[in-house]
C-alpha cells in the first residue's frame, strides 16, 4: 500500500510574542496509508489539532519532515498542491463557510485553484450530490443545520478532488444523531471514493470506526494500534482522561474486582465482553465475591451511580409547572415551524430533572420558557408560583432561576474574572460584602483558583472560561439551575468534572434541570427524565420508567444507555439479574451482588 502522508520525528512549538515557546508536538512519527481510516485520539490540548495543521502546511515543523503525496510541507512551492491534496474540515461549522449560498461556498476552493468555470460547475454539482446537499444548492448556508454545515464543508473539499481528508474535531459541536450521520458519510467516502481519512477526535465511538488509531498526550504519541488493541488497555486510556467502550469497561472492572484475568482482545466485541463476564462470574471464588461486595458497599455511599444510593428529593412540591404549552416560531408566516406541541409536566423541588431529545425536538425553546426569555403563546408556565407571562413576575423569576446556555464562555465580558462572576449578584442589588462572599463561594465550587480572580477572563483556557461562566450563575444563588448542554465540546475528563457540579448542587438542595444529548449522562444523573420528540412529550418519568423499550426510544432518535443494555444482554444468561443500572461501576456492582447472592442461596439450600 502506498503512503500518502509520512511524518518523521516532527517537533513543533507555538511561538508567541514575548512568551516562552509552547511545545505542542513532540518527536512524532507516523505514516498514513492511502485509502485507510486513521483516528488520532487525545484530550483537549494534547497536540492532535496541531498535528493536523502541520500535515496541511498551515504550520511548518521546527524539526523533522512531513511528506504529503511526495511533497515536503516545508517546501514553499508545493504548499497549494498539498492543501488541495489534503482537505481539512474544522470544528466550528459557522466559521469555515465563505459563500453566501451553498453552491458558491463549494465553488470557493476550485475557484482558488483557477479551474475552468465549466469544470467548477461539474465538480460542485458532483460534490453536493456526494454529500446529499444537492437540493440545498441555492440556499443561504446559515439556514442549514450544524450537521449539514459540516457536510457542506466536506463538499467544499471534495470539489477540489482531494486524496486525503483531515477532520479536525469536525463532530465536536454536533449532536449524536448528526455525528453518526456525518461519520456515515465519511465511511461512505472511504469505500466509494477511496479517500484517506484522518479523524482527530476525543469521541471514543468514532475511533472504533478507524483502521488504525494513534493516541496523543502532551504532544507525544503514547499508544498506537487497531481500535481493539487500543481500548484493550483500559487502565492506560482512563489515565489519559479518555473514554472506553462501556462493555470493555465493565469487563475490565469486573476482572479487577473478582481478581480474574482477561485474555488479550477478548472484550473487543459486545458478545465477547459478555462471554468474558459470564466466565469470570462462574470462575470466581465465593470469598472474593463476598469481599468485593463488602468493599463496594462501602464505596456505594460515595457513588451516585445507582438509584438506591440517591437521596430522595426533599419534597414533591412543584417548582415548575408547564401546562398545555404550545409554541410556534414565525407564527402566521410561510416560515412557521412548530417547536412545542401540547407540553405538560411538573418539576419538583430538589430533583435533578433531565431533558433529552434530538436536535430540533424543542428542548432549547422549552427551557427558555423557564425564565421568561420566551413567553408562552398558548398554555401556561409557572415558576415558583409566578407566571412567566407576567412582566413583573419575570424579573423575580430570573433572580431565582439561573439559565446557562450552551458554550457559556462566550458570554464573558468583564475586565476580571471576579467582576464577571459578580455581574449577576450586582444586578440583584446586593451589598458588596455579600457579593464578595458569593463570588468566592461560587469560585470554590467550580474549582477556580483565587489567583485567577484578578485575571482577565479572556486569558483563560476554554475549560476555565466555562467554569467562570458557571460560577457567574451560581453566585446568584438560584433555587433552580437550568443547564443547557453544559459539557458540549469538552473532552471526557472535562465533561465529568462539569457534570459533577450538577450533582453537587443537587446535594445542596438546588433544583437542577439538565439538558443533554447524552443518554449516559442523563440516565446516570437524573431523578426524572423528560423525552421530547418533535416538540411533544415522548416519555416522562424516572430513568427506570423511561429507559425500558429500545424501540420506543429509537423513535425519538435515542438509544438505551449502554450499561443497562449490557446488563440486559447478561440477564439472558443470569436469571433474575437487575438491569436498572446506568454506569459501568453500578453494573459491575450488580453483577457481583448477583454472584454473592447466588452463593448464599446455594449455601442455604445445602
Amino acid at each position, binding site marked *: 500500500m502506498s503512503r500518502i502522508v509520512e511524518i518523521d520525528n516532527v517537533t513543533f512549538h507555538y511561538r508567541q510574542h514575548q512568551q516562552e515557546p509552547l511545545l505542542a508536538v513532540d518527536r512524532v512519527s507516523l505514516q498514513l496509508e492511502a485509502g485507510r481510516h486513521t483516528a488520532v485520539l487525545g484530550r483537549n490540548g494534547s497536540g492532535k489539532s496541531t498535528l493536523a495543521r502541520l500535515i496541511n502546511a498551515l504550520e511548518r515543523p521546527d524539526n523533522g519532515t512531513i511528506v504529503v503525496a511526495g511533497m515536503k510541507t516545508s517546501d514553499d512551492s508545493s504548499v497549494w498542491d498539498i*492543501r488541495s491534496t489534503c482537505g481539512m474540515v474544522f470544528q466550528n461549522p459557522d466559521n469555515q463557510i465563505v459563500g453566501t449560498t451553498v453552491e458558491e461556498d463549494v465553488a470557493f476552493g476550485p*475557484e482558488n485553484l483557477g479551474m475552468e468555470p465549466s469544470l467548477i460547475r461539474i465538480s460542485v454539482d458532483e460534490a453536493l450530490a456526494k454529500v446529499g446537499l444537492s437540493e440545498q444548492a441555492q440556499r443561504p448556508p446559515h439556514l442549514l443545520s450544524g450537521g449539514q454545515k459540516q457536510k457542506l464543508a466536506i463538499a467544499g473539499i471534495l470539489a477540489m478532488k482531494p486524496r486525503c481528508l483531515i477532520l479536525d474535531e469536525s463532530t465536536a459541536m454536533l449532536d449524536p444523531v448528526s455525528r453518526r450521520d456525518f461519520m456515515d458519510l465519511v465511511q461512505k467516502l472511504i469505500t466509494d471514493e477511496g479517500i484517506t481519512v484522518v479523524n482527530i477526535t476525543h469521541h471514543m465511538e468514532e475511533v472504533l470506526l478507524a483502521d488504525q488509531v494513534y493516541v496523543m498526550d502532551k504532544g507525544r504519541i503514547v499508544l498506537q494500534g487497531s481500535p481493539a488493541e487500543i481500548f484493550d488497555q483500559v487502565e492506560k486510556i482512563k489515565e489519559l482522561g479518555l473514554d472506553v467502550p462501556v462493555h470493555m469497561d465493565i469487563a475490565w472492572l469486573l476482572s479487577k474486582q473478582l481478581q480474574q484475568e482477561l485474555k488479550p482482545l477478548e472484550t473487543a466485541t459486545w458478545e465477547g465482553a459478555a462471554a468474558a463476564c459470564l466466565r469470570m462470574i462462574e470462575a470466581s471464588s465465593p470469598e472474593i465475591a463476598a469481599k468485593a461486595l463488602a468493599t463496594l458497599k462501602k464505596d456505594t455511599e460515595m457513588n451516585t451511580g445507582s438509584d438506591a444510593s440517591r437521596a430522595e428529593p426533599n419534597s414533591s412540591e412543584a417548582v415548575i409547572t408547564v401546562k398545555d404549552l404550545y409554541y410556534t416560531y414565525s407564527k402566521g408566516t410561510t416560515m412557521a415551524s412548530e417547536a412545542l406541541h401540547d407540553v405538560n409536566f411538573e418539576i419538583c423541588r430538589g430533583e435533578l430533572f433531565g431533558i433529552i431529545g434530538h436536535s430540533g425536538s424543542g428542548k432549547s425553546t422549552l427551557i427558555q420558557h423557564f425564565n421568561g*426569555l420566551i413567553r408562552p403563546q398558548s398554555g401556561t408556565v409557572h415558576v415558583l408560583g409566578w407566571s412567566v407571562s407576567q412582566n413583573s413576575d419575570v424579573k423575580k423569576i430570573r433572580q431565582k432561576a*439561573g439559565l446557562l446556555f450552551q458554550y457559556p464562555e462566550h458570554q464573558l465580558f468583564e475586565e476580571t474574572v471576579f467582576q464577571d462572576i459578580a455581574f449577576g449578584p450586582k444586578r440583584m442589588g446586593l451589598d458588596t460584602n455579600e457579593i464578595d462572599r458569593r463570588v468566592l463561594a461560587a469560585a470554590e465550587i467550580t474549582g477556580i483558583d483565587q489567583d485567577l480572580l484578578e485575571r482577565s477572563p479572556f486569558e483563560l483556557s476554554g475549560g476555565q472560561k466555562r467554569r467562570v461562566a458557571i460560577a457567574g450563575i451560581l453566585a446568584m444563588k438560584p433555587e433552580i439551575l437550568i443547564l443547557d448542554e453544559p459539557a458540549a465540546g469538552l473532552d471526557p475528563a472535562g465533561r465529568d468534572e462539569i457534570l459533577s457540579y450538577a450533582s453537587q448542587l443537587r446535594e445542596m438542595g438546588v433544583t437542577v434541570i439538565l439538558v443533554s444529548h447524552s443518554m449516559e449522562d442523563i440516565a446516570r444523573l437524573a431523578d426524572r427524565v423528560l423525552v421530547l420528540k418533535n416538540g411533544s412529550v415522548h416519555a416522562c418519568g424516572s430513568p427506570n420508567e423511561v429507559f425500558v423499550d429500545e424501540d420506543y426510544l429509537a423513535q425519538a432518535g435515542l438509544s438505551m444507555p449502554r450499561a443497562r443494555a449490557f446488563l440486559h444482554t447478561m440477564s439472558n444468561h443470569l436469571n433474575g439479574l437487575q438491569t436498572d443500572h446506568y454506569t459501568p461501576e453500578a453494573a459491575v456492582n450488580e453483577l457481583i451482588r448477583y454472584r454473592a447472592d447466588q452463593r448464599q442461596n446455594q449455601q442455604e439450600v445445602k
Partner: protein
Amino acid sequence: MLGNISLGRYYPADSLLHRLDPRTKLLGVIIFMVLIFMAQSVAAMLLLAALTIVLIILSKVPVKQVLSGLKPILFILIFAFVLNIFTGTGKEWLRLGPLKITDQGVYTAIRMAVRLTLLIMNTTLLLTLTTTPVMVADAMEKLLGPLSRFGFPAHEMAMMMSIALRFVPTLLEETEKIMKAQSSRGADYDTGGLISKAKGLVSVLIPLFVSAFKRAEDLATAMEARCYRGGEGRTRMKSLKFTSADMAFAIF
C-alpha cells in the same frame, strides 16, 4: 426577532432577470436612478412605473416579496410625503393653523413618494432579490477592476463585502444569544435610562467582538486551507458573461 432582519434576501428562481449579468443590473440600477430623478412629467413617471411592472413580471418574484422591501423605508416615505405636502407653494387647498396644503405641495409629495417607491423597488428587484450578494460583489470587482491598475484593491474590497454579507445573519444570531444569556444573568435591555442602556450594551458588544475576532481567525485559516491566495489566478464558477439578453436590456 433580530434574525428576521433581511439583508440580501436572495429569492431563488430561474428567470431572465436572474440570468442577467450582475454588471448589467448594477449599471441598470444606476441608469434607472438617474432616469427617475430626471423624469418630471406624469407620462415619464408612468412609463417608468410600467417598466418596473414589466421587470417584476420578468423576474418571477412574487409581488409581496418586492413590496416587503419597502417596509424599512416606510417611515421615511411617510415623513417625506408629509413634509412635502405642507411645504409646497402654489394654490392653497386647505389650512390647518400655520400649516397649509397646496396643489404644488401635493404634486411634489406624490412625485417624491412615487420616485422613492420605484427606486427602492428596482434596486431590491435588480440587486438583492435576483442577484446573490456574491454576484453583486463580483460585479463591483469587475467594474472597478480597471482601477486596480492604479493600486485600488478591487478584489479585496469585493471579497470583504461578500464575507461581511455572509456573516451578517450569523452575527445577528449570536447577538440574540448573548443578549439572552446576559438577560438570564440579570441584565436589562428594555428599561432604564440612556446611560444604563449604553452600559448594558457593553455586556453584549464585548463578547460579540471577541467572538467576531475568533471567527475571523478561524475563517482565515479555513480559507487558507482551501487554497485561497488572493485574487490572482482565481477563476469563477459563474464567470460573468454578457449575453444577447444583456445587450437587449442595455439598449432598452
